[in-house]
């Protein structure tokens, strides 16, 4: 009935597209990947909530000021921060179509990520060696889950980065590879954002507690 009224006004309603509507290839990849990152954000939010609730339950075990080495954390934070801007330079070189420049900056980013991962694993090894294992107290369980999940993300980011290096090396800067580099860029910067939360809440506030 309402459609009748609309046509009566002289404007024929048009419910289909006369001109073919082309979506650019991979046009929706970025928003899809962004939604994934937001869901990943919720995982980290729940892990932060767990750490916030349990972070003070030491069960007469070691507390942050006995375990954490802020110099080490400062170095690994610096490595991750530097890797953010080197990834940015890789993106800029990619936009200018410089394949070698993109590869070089990506390799530097990967090395910095590996440095960060190495320092985190060294810290874990050191803590476990001192008997500060995840099952020692609720604080340590929450700590290892939160920082471990972040380290796992960095690990997969580095694996992805190595895969991309091979793909760009083989096929060049084709549109599909450009989309992949852009998605990894979002992932990499997102991990840096999570790390800001980790070093603020876990390390810095842990030392103040």
């Amino acid at each position, binding site marked *: 009935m309402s459609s009748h009224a609309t046509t009566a006004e002289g404007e024929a309603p048009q419910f289909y597209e006369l*001109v073919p509507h082309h979506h650019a290839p991979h046009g929706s990849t970025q928003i899809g990947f962004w939604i994934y990152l937001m869901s990943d*954000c919720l995982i980290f939010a*729940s892990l932060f909530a767990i750490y916030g609730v349990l972070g003070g339950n030491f069960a007469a075990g070691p507390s942050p000021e006995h375990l954490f080495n802020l110099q080490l954390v400062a170095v690994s934070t610096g490595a991750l921060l530097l890797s953010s801007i080197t990834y940015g330079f890789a993106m*800029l070189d990619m936009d200018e179509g410089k394949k070698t420049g993109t590869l070089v900056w990506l390799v530097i980013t990967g090395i910095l990520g590996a440095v960060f991962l190495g320092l985190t694993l060294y810290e874990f090894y050191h803590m476990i060696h001192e008997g500060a294992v995840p099952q020692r107290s609720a604080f340590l369980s929450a700590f290892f889950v939160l920082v471990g999940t972040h380290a796992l993300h960095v690990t997969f980011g580095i694996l992805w980065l190595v895969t991309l290096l091979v793909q760009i090396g083989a096929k060049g800067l084709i549109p599909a590879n450009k989309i992949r580099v852009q998605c990894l860029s979002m992932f990499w910067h997102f991990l840096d954002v999570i790390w*800001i939360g980790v070093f603020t809440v876990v390390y810095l506030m842990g030392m103040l507690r």
Partner: protein
Amino acid sequence: MSAHTSTDTLASGTHAHPNPDAHGDGHDHGTRRTYLIGFALSVILTAIPFWLVMGDVIADTTIATLVIMGFGVVQIFVHMVYFLHMNTKSEGGWTMMAAIFTIIIIVIALSGSLWVMFHLNTNMMPGHIMNPADLI
């Protein structure tokens, strides 16, 4: 709307670099300058809280915690703007909508968990029972 967008896509198809984001909006990748500004800001915003804690600058723990959290929040926004290139226009505003939704959920989850568990802990403290006669 859709017909208009597709003509835009066709027009930009002649461009030398096929832009995968030609659908509706441009995706801002930033320039060398914005990356360097973002990096400089994040170095400053990281160095100050580390200095505050390592140098024991603020004696009051509560104030120091709030200041450090403030620096963390500001740095997260710096990263979102300068590195993740968040703005209200990209993907027709849907990245921003998803981010706002996520932030709301995070705030509810974090503040709710901390609030409930803090009160639970307080109420479960043995010292909370002031008068032993209340137990009977």
